[in-house]
């Protein structure tokens, strides 16, 4: 029983971190209507930024957010502005420009391999950080402290993003653009500026998720690939573009990964994830919290 509860808690914590990584993806999709295949690479870049920030300043991993978030915001902003915007301009009349998938995949190859060229294939981890390996002991249950921090961060970030989109002027402009590009443009909203901002915000969220991972995870050039497909599955499960859906979708995946191995090998648990994903798609193609008109 304790093991079961422990597995559930671990699943929720790890899952919410998955959800946080997917949150960035879903924000970008919500506005631009494209899947960002460079998503994993952005996690990887953020992890390297966080790693160097922590190593050089020696601060608590979460203090690195002060550096990582703005750096990644501008990284995303200019990535969209310079690389992806030209496609949108060329394909104005297409609602979901598929070509963007290719461009973001190109970005993925470039970022991953540039990192390999510059930093080498080594695996890195931050040895001296106050969160590393810390466990919370409740009865006979052990809960990972860095994952707990990740859970809290995920919830706060999701709430903040939700508040931002609902209450601020920029947030409302973003939502307007995501609902109807043409109408938003007519209202005087600069569509491409909004795209840049949305991409920047999405990337900044990816940066936050990377900071939650760095205390207990290792860092290497192809680390993003591990989170890539997981992110796609989560956003579709939760409903593309849904903020709460991303977190809940992440938690569902985390729970399966955590609980299913109690009854089968971990490799079959991986198969269950795909199975459940497909079942949800057939029953409710717009995902658990998706809006129907989007599919």
């Amino acid at each position, binding site marked *: 029983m304790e093991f079961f509860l422990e597995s559930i808690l671990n699943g929720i914590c790890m899952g919410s971190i998955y959800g946080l990584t997917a949150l960035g993806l879903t924000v970008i999709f919500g506005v631009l209507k494209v899947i960002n295949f460079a998503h994993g690479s952005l996690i990887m870049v953020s992890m390297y930024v966080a790693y160097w920030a922590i190593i050089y300043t020696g601060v608590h991993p979460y203090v690195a957010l002060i550096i990582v978030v703005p750096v990644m915001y501008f990284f995303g902003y200019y990535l969209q502005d310079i690389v992806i915007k030209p496609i949108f301009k060329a394909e104005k009349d297409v609602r979901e420009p598929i070509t963007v998938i290719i461009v973001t995949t190109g970005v993925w190859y470039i970022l991953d391999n540039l990192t390999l060229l510059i930093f080498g294939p080594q695996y890195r981890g931050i040895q001296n950080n106050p969160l590393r390996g810390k466990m919370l002991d409740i009865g006979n249950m052990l809960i990972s402290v860095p994952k707990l921090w990740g859970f809290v961060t995920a919830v706060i970030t999701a709430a903040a993003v939700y508040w931002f989109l609902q209450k601020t002027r920029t947030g409302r402009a973003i939502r307007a653009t995501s609902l109807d590009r043409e109408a938003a443009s007519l209202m005087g909203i600069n569509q491409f500026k909004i795209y840049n901002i949305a991409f920047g915000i999405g990337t900044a969220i990816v940066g936050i998720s990377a900071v939650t991972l760095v205390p207990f995870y290792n860092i290497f050039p192809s680390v993003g690939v591990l989170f890539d497909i997981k992110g796609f599955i989560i956003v*579709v499960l939760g409903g593309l573009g849904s903020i709460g859906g991303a977190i809940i979708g992440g938690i569902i995946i985390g729970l399966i990964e955590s609980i299913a191995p109690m009854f089968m090998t971990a490799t079959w648990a991986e198969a269950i994830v795909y199975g459940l994903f497909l079942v949800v798609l057939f029953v409710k193609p717009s995902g658990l919290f998706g809006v129907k008109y989007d599919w």
Partner: protein
Amino acid sequence: MTRKTINTSALILLGVVAFGIPLVLRSPTYLHIICLLFFYAYLTTSWNLVGGFAGVLPLGHSAFVGIGAYTSTVLSLQYGVSPWLGMIVGGFLAGIVGILIGLPTFKMRGAYFALATIAFGEGIRVMFENIETLGPLNIRGPRGLEIPPTHTGFVNFMFNTKEPYYYIILVMLIGVIAFTYFISRSKLGYFLNAGGEEPEAAMSLGVNVARAKLIAMAMSSFLTALAGTFYAQFTLYIYPKSVMSLDLSFEIAFIALIGGRGSIAGPILGALLLRPVSDFSRIYFGSSLPGLHLIIFGTVLILVMIFQPRGLQEPLLKVYNKLLDRILQQAPQGKAGHEYS
């Protein structure tokens, strides 16, 4: 000399060149690279039946390559069935799986469809990695199957030289191109096209879009699986991460999009650009600057998409037509196959 005769003669010239290549180019290295180029062109042309004409973006086609490769290999290793027969069996199996995948997914559009097919492809790979034996069939999970290179000969689909492989994949490629051409001119092709662009409108006109798409999917997965057998016999070793990898699914789709999806020439143009970029950049930079070749590959993807988001096929066709105009207006005896090829 009319436009049509020029077109036909250009095509014939192209065919003659293609069949003549091994007579001139003796290097197995280059023949190997060209075989893979044709292999990818073949896969992409098969993919095009769904991804191009039906207007959706399937990203899980490597599953069919894997089904084809595994079926023929298991049958030949365990029961001594000729891979040629296994190839057909694998094709039908893949066709059935294709329909099973198509039934639910064709209700989805855009990103949902793309992601659902990714999940299907990855799901099938994970299953294969978890299964040691499938009934009496020994598929050996993640360890894969190696084909002993001992029994060469046509019946065994195994040769010591590259030329037979070259002609086999060339004939397959020409076959699939002819088939696609035929389909695109048929009623099914029109249905698919209509369904891809305006599904609601097409449906209101009484076109059974869903059925057309399913037929296209079945054909596409059947054809894709045939190439799986070719791959298995060509590299003599298969395992889930090679024949069912997401990388392979992506590459098929990329070649189509770079070349121009939904056109006959697109997949070939895409393969003609991307395969050499991928191979030669790896050969020249792979050892000295690890990873640089993939950076170059990524850059080419981005550049082509920025400058030619509809693929290479469109501008090249325009130039070809302009050239034809010019030739027809002026001295009508020039050959005009070069630009197009």
